[in-house]
């Protein structure tokens, strides 16, 4: 079974190399088939690894260079259900992207396939590795593939600009991660996460704080936490639709995963006595991210950009889930990642369908034009319900688990943030549904009016009257999968077992360095009353429908004075999003400095 371990990285890279070498000599359909087969194979393998590692995490040493006397000599993959599960989720979305793109990019060669496979390999490796520097390398491989995919639409200046903003900010993030890794190495002489964790034990000093802040901020650039989030909206607005599916559905979430992995494998010891400081700071960052993302989301008219800001908002919720620093929060975050990733991917696919059919994704230009496409409207609307966290979507189960974890950690105020983010982002989606597919309301409204029109290049050649099945089916299936996650009986328990395994600091070190298995850190069985979360999420759904209705209702006074403060507040927020990469890097620098200073002060000066 252990021979399977390197395959999730090796298969896509191998196929990519062959396709790249034969560039121009492979018929398009054969390249498609090879990519889909490779993705399915990797998906099956990672799913298998997830099931096998359920009881004992798998440790695989490349080249047989195993641990000698507690020292890692080689590079290891350490596979637990959360890492393997995330990798198989990556495969689901990559598969959806490949199927959707069967109609795509007919003029260009197979470079798109090569880049997508490289992206897949990097994301899988990133999920499975147990070595910090290896993680950095996969992070950079993932980024490089993503930059190139983002700027794939060559003729559009905004596409190039979005890709450049994305590449520059994320590369700086990667340098910060590398600096953090170097500092940890200088301290411990190790790159293996388990070994670093054991060497640091419970020590805490300035070097460790700086190293952790650098690594965390570097990964949170990818995760688009405020104030590192600016690149995300630019990149998503301009990237080809199949690429957006992967960006929003899983790549951004991998940033949160990376910090969680580093925290639980390495930093749980040093921060054991300082959890309130870290937790409080991260909860604040998550809450601000969720709120800023939601408000900006509602103020967009470009559908992809709107969805991008919604992703920022929901990543804020994921950061909150991790920031509780409990296994229960982690379990909720894992379920939420799946639920959100699937509905968000479906939403992006629908935006791609609109672009295919009408050549634009501008909400105002599309007013009423989607009327003949009821099925697509239904998928978009249902995905909106998923964003609001309506039961029985997977997002509801995730939110419920997170809220329960927050209650145990005495942080119940986050319920308000979940309500707000869910209601506002879903309201934006409902507004788009009503306007585009039913032609309700006026062409313009007060809130999204400030958004700019971004010119879009068609991604597909021909467009008849209908919608191709290869575009519609993946969206519908993803929404159904999001429902399935919420309904399947054992998801909650399995996620909790997986989260307890990932958060088991001592167990992880023993497994990797000593090859022994400590007794399972078993979650005690507890079932919480669903009623509160049920009321909250139904309330959020209702509020979202209400807000969308109010924005479009014909009798609603458009020049109402009560609007003015909301509008000017939105304008202030909007003014920060300049599209200028220099500003983005300035905010990034400021954010890192602020983060480091606040965390340092909280720990060293105020003794949290």
């Amino acid at each position, binding site marked *: 079974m252990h021979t399977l371990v390197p395959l999730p990285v090796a298969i896509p890279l191998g196929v990519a190399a062959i396709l790249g070498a034969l560039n121009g000599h492979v018929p398009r359909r054969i390249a498609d088939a090879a990519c889909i087969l490779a993705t399915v194979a990797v998906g099956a393998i990672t799913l298998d690894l997830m099931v096998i590692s359920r009881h004992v995490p798998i440790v695989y040493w490349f080249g047989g260079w195993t641990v000698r006397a507690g020292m890692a000599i080689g590079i290891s993959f350490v596979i637990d259900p959360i890492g393997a599960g995330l990798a198989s989720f990556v495969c689901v979305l990559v598969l959806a992207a490949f199927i959707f793109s069967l109609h795509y990019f007919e003029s260009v060669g197979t470079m798109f396939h090569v880049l997508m496979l490289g992206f897949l390999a990097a994301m899988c490796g990133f999920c499975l590795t147990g070595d910090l*520097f290896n993680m950095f390398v996969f992070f950079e491989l993932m980024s490089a593939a993503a930059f190139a995919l983002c700027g794939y639409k060559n003729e559009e200046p905004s596409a190039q600009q979005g890709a450049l903003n994305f590449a520059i900010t994320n590369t700086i993030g990667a340098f910060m991660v590398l600096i953090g890794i170097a500092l940890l190495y200088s301290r411990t002489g190790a790159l293996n996460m388990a070994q670093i964790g054991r060497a640091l034990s419970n020590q805490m000093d300035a070097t460790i704080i700086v190293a952790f802040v650098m690594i965390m901020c570097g990964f949170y650039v990818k995760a688009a936490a405020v104030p590192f989030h600016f690149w995300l909206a630019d990149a998503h607005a301009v990237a080809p639709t199949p690429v957006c599916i992967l960006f929003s559905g899983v790549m951004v979430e991998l940033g949160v995963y990376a910090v969680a992995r580093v925290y639980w494998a390495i930093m749980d010891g040093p921060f054991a006595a300082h959890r309130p400081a870290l937790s409080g700071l991260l909860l604040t960052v998550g809450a601000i991210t969720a709120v800023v993302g939601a408000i900006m989301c509602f103020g967009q008219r470009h559908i992809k950009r709107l969805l991008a800001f919604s992703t920022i908002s929901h990543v804020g919720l994921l950061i909150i889930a991790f920031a509780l620093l409990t296994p229960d929060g982690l379990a909720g975050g894992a379920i939420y990642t799946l639920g959100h990733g699937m509905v968000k991917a479906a939403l992006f696919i629908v935006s791609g369908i609109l672009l295919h059919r009408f050549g634009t994704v501008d909400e105002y230009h599309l007013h009423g034009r989607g009327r003949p496409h009821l099925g697509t409207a239904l998928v978009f609307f249902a995905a909106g319900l998923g964003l609001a966290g309506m039961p029985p979507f997977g997002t509801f189960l995730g939110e419920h688990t997170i809220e329960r974890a927050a209650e145990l950690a005495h942080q119940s105020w986050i319920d308000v943030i979940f309500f707000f983010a869910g209601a506002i982002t879903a309201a934006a989606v409902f507004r788009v549904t009503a306007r585009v597919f039913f032609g309700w309301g006026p062409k313009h409204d007060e809130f999204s009016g400030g958004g700019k029109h971004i010119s879009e290049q068609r991604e597909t050649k021909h467009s008849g009257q209908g919608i191709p099945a290869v575009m519609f089916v993946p969206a519908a299936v993803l929404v159904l999968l999001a429902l399935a996650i919420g309904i399947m009986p054992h998801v909650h328990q399995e996620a909790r077992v997986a989260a307890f395994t990932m958060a088991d600091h001592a167990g992880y070190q023993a497994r990797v360095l000593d090859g022994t298995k400590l007794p399972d850190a078993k979650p005690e069985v507890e079932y919480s009353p669903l009623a509160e979360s049920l009321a909250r999420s139904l309330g959020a759904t209702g509020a979202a429908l209400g807000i969308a209705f109010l924005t479009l209702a014909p009798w609603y006074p458009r020049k109402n004075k009560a609007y003015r403060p909301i509008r000017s507040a939105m304008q202030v927020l909007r003014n920060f999003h300049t599209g200028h990469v220099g500003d983005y890097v300035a905010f990034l620098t400021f954010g890192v400095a602020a983060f480091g200073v606040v965390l340092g002060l909280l720990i060293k000066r105020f003794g949290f």
Partner: protein
Amino acid sequence: MSIFPYLVAAWLFLVGLYGVISSRNFVHIAMCLAVVQSSTYVLLLAIGYKTGGVPPIFAGAQVGTPAVDPIVQALMLTDIVVEATVVALLLALAVQIQKAAGTVNPDRLLELQG
């Protein structure tokens, strides 16, 4: 081991960031990123340096000979390879944006706002 190389690394990092923030040319930004990246080289080499150490080639050397740390040098080489890719990609994007928009000045690209 003196603190000097660490100060150089910090200086390179900050001055490179300042360059990225204040730049009006995407090609120039790519070069500033290369400066930021150099700070990681200096940092890695400084961490592995041993005063009086020999190159880490142990064939025929006596046991206990002090040597500089080869691991950080390997990390640095990997870093160079990875970042060469990224800088090449950035320059390619800069060429494309010049073709598409006729400018490489981020101040003149105003579509992605708000």
